[in-house]
């Protein structure tokens, strides 16, 4: 995994209303809210700049109507942005010709939709094979990989069912299988689990993490559920009224919210799952004895019981095995109590 940005956008705008392009041309790259309002424009995405790294799971979250779907559709150019720049693997996506776009989408992008968007007339097998079919592959060429994908998402035996014969969770598995069959570089998921009930959602999140462990895709994942964002995300961007108000790791957001809006989101976050030993350790006192050693990256939840039960603090070791600090009972308690969670 090299750390180069795969998908970058700069000063991206999507305005709805009368003559949005002309407005943006006149008012420069960053018009004020007042100017927007007086022109009668609604900004679905306002001045968004992001850089998504190869192999990371980048979560976009925000309340309903905050512009998440619009942003992700601008990134894949399903919606034509009003202004700004989108670079996909160094290529300016907004200048790509229709033919280029078709090629890009056939080979490098995959998308999963909130309401599954399965083709109602095709069987599971044909739905999964569809992206290959429109590329012109023959039946035998496309069915083999399709069967493999169906197996990957655990739907073997259902190949010949039609979508309406499947449960929501099963339908979304088909949606996932079909978006992965082309082995895309970027995988967009727009609230993939929001339409599912909580138990299934949890199961699907686990599935998703399992898949990502195998596949290491670059992922743009949308959700309005902070807990889900924390579970799956490496980094999270929080949106409000079209603007990106903060980007950071879950820990950064919880520890240092930029404003009340972000703080409100993170308030009920499961802190013990977010904070790592590294972030709550203190410097060891000279000659302080330790009861054991904890890796710096491990989360509070995983070592809370151990530390709690011990009189002595635990040492925190970095990847190289050197002790860089200690965690004691008090530090752990403050995380657990601060979150209002039972230990």
């Amino acid at each position, binding site marked *: 995994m090299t750390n180069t940005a795969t998908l970058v956008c700069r000063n991206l705008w999507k305005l709805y209303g009368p003559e949005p392009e002309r407005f943006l041309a006149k008012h420069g790259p960053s018009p004020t809210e007042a100017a927007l309002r007086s022109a009668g424009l609604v900004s679905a995405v306002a001045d968004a700049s992001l850089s998504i790294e190869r192999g990371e799971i980048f979560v976009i979250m925000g309340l309903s109507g905050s512009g998440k779907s619009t942003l992700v559709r601008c990134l894949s150019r399903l919606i034509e942005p009003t202004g700004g720049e989108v670079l996909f693997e160094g290529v300016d996506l907004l200048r790509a010709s229709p033919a280029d776009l078709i090629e890009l*989408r056939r080979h490098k*992008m995959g*998308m999963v*939709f909130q309401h599954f*968007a399965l083709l109602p*007339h095709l069987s599971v097998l044909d739905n999964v094979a569809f992206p290959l079919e429109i590329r012109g592959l023959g039946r035998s060429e496309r069915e083999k990989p399709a069967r493999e994908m169906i197996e990957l998402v655990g739907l073997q035996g259902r190949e010949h069912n039609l979508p309406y014969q499947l449960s929501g969770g099963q339908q979304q598995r088909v949606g996932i299988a079909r978006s992965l069959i082309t082995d895309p570089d970027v995988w967009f998921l727009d609230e993939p689990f929001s339409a599912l009930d909580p138990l299934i959602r949890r199961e699907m999140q686990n599935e998703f993490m399992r898949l990502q462990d195998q596949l290491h895709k670059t992922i743009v994942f949308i959700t309005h559920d902070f807990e889900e964002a924390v579970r799956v995300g490496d980094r999270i961007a929080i949106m409000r009224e079209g603007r990106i108000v903060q980007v950071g790791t879950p820990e950064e957001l919880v520890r240092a919210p930029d404003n009340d809006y972000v703080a409100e989101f993170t308030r009920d976050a499961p802190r013990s799952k977010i904070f790592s030993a590294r972030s709550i350790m203190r410097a060891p006192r000279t000659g302080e004895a330790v009861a054991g050693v904890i890796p710096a990256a491990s989360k509070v939840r995983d070592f809370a019981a151990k530390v709690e039960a011990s009189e002595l603090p635990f040492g925190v070791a970095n990847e190289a095995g050197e002790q860089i600090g200690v965690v004691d009972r008090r530090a752990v308690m403050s995380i657990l109590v601060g979150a209002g969670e039972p230990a």
Partner: protein
Amino acid sequence: MTAAAVETKIPASAEWMRPGRVAVLLFAVLSLVAFLLPDGVLPAWTRQLPAEFRIGLDTWISAALKWLVEDATFGLFTFKDLTRGFAQLLNVPLDIATSILSTGLLDGRGSSAIQLAPPLPWIAVVGVVAALGYRFGGSKLALLAGGAFLYLAVFGQWASAMLTLSSIVVAAPLGIAVGLATGVAGYRVPLLRRIITPILDLMQTVPTFAYLIPILFLFGFGPVAAMIATMIYAAPPMVRVTMAALEGVPREIVEYGTMAGTTPRQMITKVMLPAARPQLLVGVNQVIMLSLNMVIIASMIGAGGLGFDVLTSLRRLDIGRGLEAGLAIVVLAIALDRLSQAYAAGARKRDAEGGLKPFLFGLAAFVAVTYLLALFVPPIATYPEALQISTAPFWTDAVKWINVNFFNVFDAVKTFILLNLLLPVKRFMMAQPWPLVAAMVGYAGWRLGGARLAALVVGLALFPVVTGQWDYTMMTVYLCGISVVVAALIGIPIGIYGGLSPRAWRVIEPAIDTLQTLPSFVYLIPAVMLFRVGDFTAMLAIVLYAVAPSVRYAAHGIRNVPTMLMEAGTSMGCTQKQSLRHIQVPVALPTILLGINQTVMLALSMLVITALVGTRDLGQQVYMALTKADTGKGLVAGLCVAAIAIIADRLIGAAAQKLAAQRSGAVDAT
């Protein structure tokens, strides 16, 4: 909310009339004066514009068409070659269908033709239809569809029915294909859509006959011309349905198509059309039903079969034969309607079950076996004549009996209504000068929808004036208006009753469903049977044909009154009658108005058909133009009917909208 509030609030929604009361009164007085003035007092131009002020639209159209047919050329070939070629092209599938179903494979033409191979045996057709019924809708539908076709054989209508069917099996798929292609184009190209939509609107209001004439002119008399007319008549709903269905494809599915990297063409053929299939199939059903509706009308320009039988018997007043053939059309219509509906409803489920190949294979085997058997066993080929039952004598006798025993009663009823209702209204309407009518229509448009609507309706009202069709137009307004009033007076109470009582609705619904399935023509048969020709007969037929929407919308409106309002009424101690009068009917009024609007449209479309029984309105004008192949005159008269239809549609629509807006305001305020 108190009882008093209800009392004042709901009638208050008729407020828009109040400032206009004086105007309405004034118009009423003027109308009455015009009616009471002796002939000759009003200047003649108020009834008929002098020739120099009229537009010779009819002669222009005729001349243009004549030029097209006689002189127009594209260099290499003439326009006439083009239409000829087109007709020949369409003749191919029609010939094939006719050979298979009706005549067999022929060598040569006319009576000297030799049959090389016989048509499908009747048993094969009945079996195929029953099998389709079974596959689409189980044994019940198999019984219905198979039974319907068996009926055609047993009652001696087979030959004509197969001729009709062969025209439909070609016209309907072609109409579907043309409609689908046009709809897709309209969806893809917004500019095209803006052109198509008003044309569709117009085509829906111009009476069918009016466009038979140019077709007759371009393609001559014969089965092909009739099939083209059928196609043109039946395709428009498919265009609409296609555009709406494509528009209705969920946004995410379209987005998925894009993200999968479909080309624009793949997007339509592989994503959107299949995803919209259930809605598209509704259009297919409509096309089939409209094709059947055209059966009799198309026989006027050369289609044979059941329509031709009905038409000739009607002309000869041979009630028995006419009724027999009419019933056969009804039976065919019901069978095809149920089959196509069941096909649409179960399409997805059948996909899941599969088994199409064995089914088709079995069907083919069955047809092949019966076909071979039929070569040696004649009763399998054609239903034996000895076993046929003709109901014609029975009907003729029945009608004779009725007429002998009840002639006086029927005649008295007819004369009474003619003298006391039809004739006075007719005299009243015919006395109205066009400036007054245009002013009234314009005023209504202005009150209901503002200046733009007023301009539109006045413009439309002046069209018959400047084309010299005023008298015929008023005659039309009279006959249609009175039929609509009668239909509404019958239909709305039935609808309200059906809306209140689900049990009653279970009886009413299938009845009006059937009324709407039947081709418009068949309504004429019993009316003529009992009352001979004339305005009264025409009115009766129109009422029968047009009553269904009044019933349906009234019931719908009543059922959809918010329960909250009903509960409010009950809590105030309204009796059932009071709540009906003060809550349900007023709240349902906008919906009821829309039903009346539909009734007006159906009445107008029935109008030309009633010309057959001797009315003297625009319908008659179109009909006469048809018999003389006078394109200009027919089209102009047809456009006058369209003008009436559009005026009625826009005014009633505006009134319903206005009422609905006030109603919802009243509901919100509670």
